[in-house]
């Protein structure tokens, strides 16, 4: 019996835990009690049960942890934490200026970081609200001729979507959207609408565009159905439950539509935006030919159809592209050979569209973001944060002299090194925490101004976002550790004996590190300043570059969509023009299919007359009347403008210089009187105009042909004699309402219309400027603190120098010199780096500035001036001080 009892022991882990739980003094008796119960259970029940119950007893014993325990370590560590906090607060209160510099710098850094984080995450959030976003792709359209990419377009052809679905098993569904604009009319409420798309039923099924009223499964199935956005319903009807209501659409097609759905407004972060979706069958009915063919389903040529496909989970788009290329060649290889043109339809993930796409016919070209710029900003955000942390490290190590005595006394009194490290880490934690809170306050108060400045739509809702808090806490902890660890170990390493004897001399590696960090800070500041200057120079360069036309004092009215008979248009317009010209403010009036700044979608084939049909190239078309070129002040490089005196001008065309090169003529003069085949007819080139910037200076000028279309009624341009828009505007409105009744008077000032193309760069520039300023302020705060300490440390030296007759200017020079050296090194590092980065960025633009040395000199000089001003105050005070005080300070 006794033998078995000895063998049977409670589980070892239980004994181990029990020993941890109970104090040594009572452990024996208690473990005896538990063992007694255990053995009893073994006898009455079985061993397994007894063991598990023993473990349960042990676990429940955890509540007795404090029983009879001498309160030693546990309470002492809370007491120490209290002490750390107390000392921290005292240190902060004692060195108000330095604490304020530290906290201000850190909170500015954190605020800048949060701002940029929000901005960047908003830019990255585009199209991610679709639950299918991982598997949704846009079908791009590329045409190659002679091995060269001729068309690189965001919108594809009608047939490709359905063809993909038939041939490729990966495709679950496809949807097309064909953009158009026109006048929508409900009784006498009518507006010109831009965001109208003719769309497949699948569009509201594969994308997350939920319907508030109506059924997404049937809303776009039948002809003449329309789904409208919520705000549109309010605009026309004053309510949202409008399913079943009629609405009339006037454009190049006139439609009586029935509203079958009201969709929630499209979120801002969607690359594709609509106010109206008209069912695709409507278009099919319109294009259906007598022989039953439907080009809007079958055409491989019209590239106006934004086409999206939803692939099966896990499908690889690259492999898809390869496979589809082959299938397409099988289907259409002969046609490719005949025409000498190869089409490709690669897929593009929809989440890449906003930031990484710059194709023809983007859905919202003005809104397209710039992935590179966003990446830049993310880097800048980290830089600012790092600069702020460096400030902390610099200031705390610089203060090591002052705190060396404290460390010595503490160590003598028996402080462990670990406790000192804890002390300094606590200080870092507290200061970082205060800064985080302050930074958040700055963000919350400043977000409105930030939005105004940058034209972004950030809100403080991010405070409710769990991810944001994860990042914030991560930044806080990383910052506290990074900025606290080094000073903590340096400060705690002092030997009490030497420190208390006053033998302390500046730690050499510490000085080098500090200098290195200052160099880094200022290199970052110089880079940001130079970057800012280059961005804004490029921006103003683009705005001031010779546009090739005059956009001043120009008012543009959108042409009428509602007009009785086309044949009457020309004479009505003539009467309208004459009526306007009677007004002394108006210099000239022209009508055209496009105006500068308005993307041309109209294309057709063109070739030199002598070439074979397979050499037909796609060219952009802008229909103009006789007055177009004079009104816009567009220079004729060769030949002449259209003239009413030339009765043969219906057989004439005018090209721009890019088109001359496109058709491989040697020069503008060479092209004059040559014949081309255009619209299936031979035409004579009578004039070549300058390459005016149709679409801003960002992009290359496309080849354009300007046929004479005197009844092109899309835009009426009014050139004013002065900038008295008010008078011309009211005259134009009266006259427009008289000649084109039933049409909304919809106008814009060309200057602002054209300059909206630069909104993105403008925004980038202001964001960049703002954060460069942030970075410089933060770096200067650090420099101010550092120079003050340096001056303080050298009080005695300066006293002696002054006593020996040094001049004030000389002393100031000595004090400033060491910082200037650092800034010089910083400049030398920053210049090549910034040159390489900005040169890469500038290469994105069709017209770009070259980076001159002046930019760098200016940025460097600016930093030097700021640094001297920052350092100057303290050095001035020190240099001016009476040497008696300096020498008596011991």
């Amino acid at each position: 019996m006794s033998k078995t009892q000895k063998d049977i022991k409670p589980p070892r882990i239980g004994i181990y835990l029990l020993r941890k739980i109970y104090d040594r003094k009572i452990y024996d008796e208690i473990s005896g009690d538990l063992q007694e119960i255990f053995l009893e259970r073994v006898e009455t029940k079985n061993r397994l049960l007894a063991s598990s119950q023993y473990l349960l007893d042990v676990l429940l014993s955890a509540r007795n942890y404090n029983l009879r325990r001498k309160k030693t370590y546990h309470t002492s560590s809370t007491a120490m934490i209290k002490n750390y906090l107390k000392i921290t607060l005292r240190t902060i209160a004692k060195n108000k200026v330095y604490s304020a510099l530290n906290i201000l710098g850190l909170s500015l850094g954190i605020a800048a970081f949060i701002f940029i984080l929000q901005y960047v995450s908003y830019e990255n959030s585009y199209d991610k609200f679709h639950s299918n976003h991982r598997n949704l792709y846009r079908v791009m359209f590329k045409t190659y001729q002679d091995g060269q990419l001729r068309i690189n377009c965001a919108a594809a052809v009608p047939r490709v979507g359905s063809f993909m679905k038939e041939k490729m098993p990966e495709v679950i569904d496809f949807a097309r959207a064909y953009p158009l604009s026109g006048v929508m009319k409900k009784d006498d409420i009518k507006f010109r609408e831009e965001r109208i798309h003719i769309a497949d039923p699948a569009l509201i099924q594969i994308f997350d565009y939920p319907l508030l009223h109506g059924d997404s499964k049937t809303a776009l199935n039948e002809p003449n159905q329309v789904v409208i956005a919520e705000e549109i319903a309010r605009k026309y009807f004053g309510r949202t439950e409008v399913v079943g209501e009629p609405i009339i659409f006037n454009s190049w097609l006139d439609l009586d539509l029935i509203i079958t759905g009201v969709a929630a407004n499209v979120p801002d972060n969607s690359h594709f935006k609509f106010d109206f979706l008209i069912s695709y069958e409507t278009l099919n009915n319109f294009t259906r030919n007598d022989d039953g063919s439907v080009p809007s389903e079958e055409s491989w040529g019209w590239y106006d159809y934004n086409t999206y496909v939803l692939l099966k989970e896990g499908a690889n788009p690259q492999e898809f592209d390869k496979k589809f290329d082959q299938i397409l060649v099988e289907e259409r290889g002969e046609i490719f050979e005949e025409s000498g043109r190869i089409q490709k339809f690669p897929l593009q993930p929809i989440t890449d569209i906003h930031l990484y796409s710059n194709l023809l016919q983007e859905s919202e070209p003005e809104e397209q973001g710039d992935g590179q710029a966003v990446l830049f900003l993310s880097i800048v955000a980290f830089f600012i944060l790092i600069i702020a942390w460096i400030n902390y490290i610099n200031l705390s190590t610089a203060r090591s002299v002052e705190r060396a005595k404290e460390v010595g006394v503490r160590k003598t009194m028996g402080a462990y090194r670990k406790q000192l490290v804890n002390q300094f880490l606590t200080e870092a934690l507290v200061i970082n925490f205060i800064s985080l809170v302050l930074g958040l306050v700055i963000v919350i108060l400043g977000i409105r101004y930030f939005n105004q400045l940058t034209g972004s739509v950030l809100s403080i809702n991010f405070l409710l976002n769990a991810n944001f808090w994860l990042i914030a806490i991560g930044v806080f902890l990383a910052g506290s550790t990074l900025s606290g660890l080094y000073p903590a170990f340096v400060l705690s390493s002092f030997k009490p004996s030497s420190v208390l004897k006053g033998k302390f001399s500046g730690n050499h590696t510490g000085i080098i590190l500090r200098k290195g960090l200052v160099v880094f800070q200022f290199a970052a500041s110089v880079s940001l300043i130079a970057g800012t200057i280059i961005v804004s120079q490029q921006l103003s360069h683009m705005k001031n570059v010779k546009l090739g036309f005059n956009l001043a004092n120009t008012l543009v009215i959108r042409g009428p969509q509602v007009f009785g008979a086309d044949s009457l248009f020309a004479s009505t317009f003539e009467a309208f023009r004459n009526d306007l010209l009677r007004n002394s403010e108006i210099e000239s009036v022209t009508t055209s299919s496009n105006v500068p700044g308005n993307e041309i979608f109209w294309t057709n084939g063109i070739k030199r007359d002598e070439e074979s049909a397979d050499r037909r190239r796609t060219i952009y078309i802008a229909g103009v009347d006789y007055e177009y070129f004079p009104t816009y002040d567009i220079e004729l490089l060769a030949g002449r403008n259209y003239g009413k005196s030339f009765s043969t001008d219906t057989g004439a065309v005018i090209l721009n210089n890019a088109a001359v090169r496109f058709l491989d003529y040697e020069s503008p003069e060479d092209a004059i009187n040559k014949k081309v085949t255009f619209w299936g007819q031979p035409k004579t080139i009578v004039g070549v105009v300058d390459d005016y910037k149709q679409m801003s200076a960002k992009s290359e000028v496309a080849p354009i042909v300007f046929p004479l279309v005197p009844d092109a009624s899309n835009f009426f341009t009014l050139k004013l004699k002065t900038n008295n828009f008010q008078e011309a505007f009211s005259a134009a409105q009266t006259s427009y309402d008289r000649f084109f009744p039933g049409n909304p008077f919809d106008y814009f000032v060309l200057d602002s219309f054209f300059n909206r193309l630069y909104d993105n760069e403008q925004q980038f520039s202001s964001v960049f400027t703002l954060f460069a300023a942030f970075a410089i302020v933060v770096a200067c705060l650090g420099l101010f603190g550092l120079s003050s300490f340096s001056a303080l440390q050298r009080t005695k030296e300066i006293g002696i120098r002054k006593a020996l007759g040094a001049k004030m200017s000389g002393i100031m020079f000595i004090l400033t010199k060491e910082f200037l050296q650092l800034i010089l090194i910083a400049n030398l590092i920053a210049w090549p780096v910034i040159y390489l980065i900005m040169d890469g960025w500038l290469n994105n633009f069709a017209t770009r500035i070259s980076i001159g040395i002046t930019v760098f000199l200016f940025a460097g000089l600016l930093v030097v001036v700021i640094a001297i001003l920052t350092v100057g105050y303290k050095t001035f005070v020190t240099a001016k001080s009476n040497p008696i005080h300096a020498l008596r300070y011991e």
Partner: protein
Amino acid sequence: MKGTNLGEFEELVLLTVASLGTEAYAVSVKSSIAEHANRIVNISAIHSSLYRLEDKGFLTSEFGGATSKRGGKQKRYFRITNTGLVALQQSKDLKQQLWKTIPQLSFQLV
């Protein structure tokens, strides 16, 4: 100190120790409570009460014999102190007084 008030479980433990006389240690208290009050109590709860009652001065303790059943560990025997008895008495008196004040009527209702 809030000390002199007895919790319900503490009172039960105290009474049990008193009734066990010289044989009161954690395991015997546990089984006695199981027997008389029909309550299965975890040993850790007994420990926590016993030591706390000793801290309050209601119990006193001494070491007693070790058995092989206990792995050679000694027992701690608890005995009730005078203060402990007084506290029990007070608690009983208080309850009795309160019992007397209950109106006759409600007895009949039960």
